[in-house]
């Protein structure tokens, strides 16, 4: 589904990713861990198409297409979803309105019919309940005055509604208490399926207790220095990055 080859990217002419290779197949859950400044968030942003990041080399194919030939919204409509580390606030736009506009914008791009309001409401209600998102939250302006936990739950709600084929979660666990973490993880797990892949970016192993990855990759200085199974996360938690880097 996603094939990253020798990816190099920079921010303000400072190289961050320095030849990253990663292949993700449908049905797999990959976790990327690494110390601060290793390039974890850069990877997420480059894949989604954030303009501050310059792609200097390498290639990424997504569902067999050259990802970098696609506009941001085209990537979204083709199934790439990024759960933001810091979700943006939009005053005046009700969360519910934003959800409906997003889902219909994607459907339109794919040449599908827009969802009718009753249909949409039914789906939102069901998914919102699953994430403890109250009807009152849905009426409030998008992310305005939301707590950290509410914002993250709102990101996952969007993910559940948009049903992407590739879910990229950027530091979704940051700012979550243990109860919120469990709710978010349950939401994410409910999306696991043989035709969907996930890329989970996290600093700590904590989230991976709830969302079990098939593969764990250690990212250091813009490159993947070690890959393994779920057990690698535990090793990391025990020994720290220093040993891993030294042994790599």
């Amino acid at each position, binding site marked *: 589904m996603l094939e990253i080859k020798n990816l190099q990217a920079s921010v303000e002419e400072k190289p961050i990713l320095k030849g990253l290779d990663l292949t993700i197949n449908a049905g797999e859950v990959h976790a990327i861990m690494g110390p601060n400044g290793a390039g974890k968030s850069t990877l997420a942003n480059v894949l989604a198409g954030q303009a501050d990041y310059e792609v200097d080399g390498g290639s990424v194919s997504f569902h067999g297409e050259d990802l970098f030939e696609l506009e941001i919204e085209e990537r979204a409509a083709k199934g790439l979803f990024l759960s933001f580390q810091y979700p*943006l606030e*939009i*005053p005046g736009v009700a969360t519910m*309105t*934003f959800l409906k506009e*997003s889902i219909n*914008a994607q459907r339109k791009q794919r040449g599908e019919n827009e969802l009718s309001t009753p249909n949409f409401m039914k789906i939102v209600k069901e998914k919102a309940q699953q994430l403890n998102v109250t009807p009152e939250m849905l009426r409030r302006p998008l992310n305005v005055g939301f707590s950290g936990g509410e914002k993250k739950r709102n990101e996952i709600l969007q993910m559940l509604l948009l049903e992407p084929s590739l879910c990229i979660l950027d530091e979704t666990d940051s700012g979550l208490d243990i109860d919120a973490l469990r709710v978010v993880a349950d939401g994410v797990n409910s999306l696991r399926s043989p035709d969907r892949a996930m890329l989970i970016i996290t600093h700590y192993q904590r989230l991976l207790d709830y969302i079990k990855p098939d593969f764990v990759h250690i990212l250091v200085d813009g490159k993947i220095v070690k890959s393994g199974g779920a057990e690698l996360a535990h090793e990391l938690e025990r020994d720290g990055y220093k040993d891993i880097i030294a042994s790599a």
Partner: protein
Amino acid sequence: MAAIKETVNTVAEIDLDNYKYGFTTDIEVDKAPKGLNEDIVRFISAKKDEPEWMLEWRLSAFRRWKKLEEPDWSSVHYPKIDFEDLYYYAAPKKKIELDSLDDLDPDILETYKKLGIPLKEQEILAGVKGASNIAVDAVFDSVSVVTTFKAKLAESGVIFCPISEAIREHPELVKKYLASVVPVGDNFYAALNSAVFTDGSFVYIPKGVRCPMELSTYFRINEPNTGQFERTLIIAEAGSHVSYLEGCTAPMRDENQLHAAVVEIVVMDDAEVKYSTVQNWYPGNSEGVGGVYNFVTKRADCIGKNSKVSWTQVETGSAITWKYPSCILRGDGSQGEFYSIAISNGYQQIDSGTKMIHLGKNTKSRIISKGISAGHSSNCYRGIVSTQRSATNVRNFTQCDSLLIGDKCSAHTIPYIEARNSSSTFEHEATTSKINDDVMFYCRQRGLNEEEAVAVIVNGFCKEVLQNLPMEFAVEAQKLVAISLEGSVG
């Protein structure tokens, strides 16, 4: 939302330098010579077949104007206007006293069709069957060309006609109320308008009557170098109710066109007037060449107890906008409202806001102003809320929100509050937000393209004001908002 979808579709069809209403109409016109002097004032008055008292009134206004100085306190900048280089009267040459719409010059009719004005009565009836009807007065350059539904309105005693007709047919009402709200010498442009106004609408709602339909006037400047000076007078007798809407467009011209209107509203006991404006004068091109100078004085006098006036405006056009629709809250318990969306793009300059003058006891005012700046434009809210010593228990709520798109535009908020007693309450809230690259990235990551994202954000920002427009025009206004901002992101 269907409306947003429509907004986006409309946006997709139009680019910034392609002002939708930028066509001109080739019709033969009857013009006064260029320039302004007493003879021109006499010419206009004679053309309008006015009684002697009206001519005298105009001439005294003209003499007053000559003594006044052009104001320079606002934040807008423009080269000095040469008042000798303008035409003060232009009328379609064909006979304009019409028995029915069929007699109207087909070119003018075509123009209104392009503007999307529901001018033909049968179309209105067929189009919005069962919904409220709209009576239309259409003003082309200097004259009113057609007024619809007059007969039906007359049944309930409502007078809705061109002001030139009212001067001839209802002189007692005009004499009593003209300049009673905006005195001739109120300001430079009000005096100019008093001397040379050529047409506009006159509305009279008798005691206790609820006007059976929306009243609407469409203004269009067609001729180059023509000033449009319309005069609107609305009188709402005790216990009456009326909703009035004005729409404005002009063709694309390299020269700047001058528009200096005066609107006066008189509101008696328990009466209510709702005045909505969708202003879309030509804003100039993306380099700032051309466009309409819109210098307007609009004021309502709430003479009666518990009377109410509500101004709603959507301002998207004009190179320069200078207007402050105001309420004099004279009657005890009277209420004034001001809901505004002012959008500036390209090199447009806006200095607009409202004045709420509380004179009566227990009077209330509410101001919701939404300014959106894009491109290289500047957008200034200037407002005043004042209470006299005797005006006790006054309440005011003001909210001024600014939305910036891009980093070359500016927004300013200049609120004045004058409180002369201690029993009054004033609330003022202001916010400034920005559509920046991060917000756009977030929206696009969810699948919205740039236009859709801007439409969603801006419609959310303007919602409170759009909700106050008459239903028939809310969708049109929403479209206009999106069109005005097209190409402002990215």
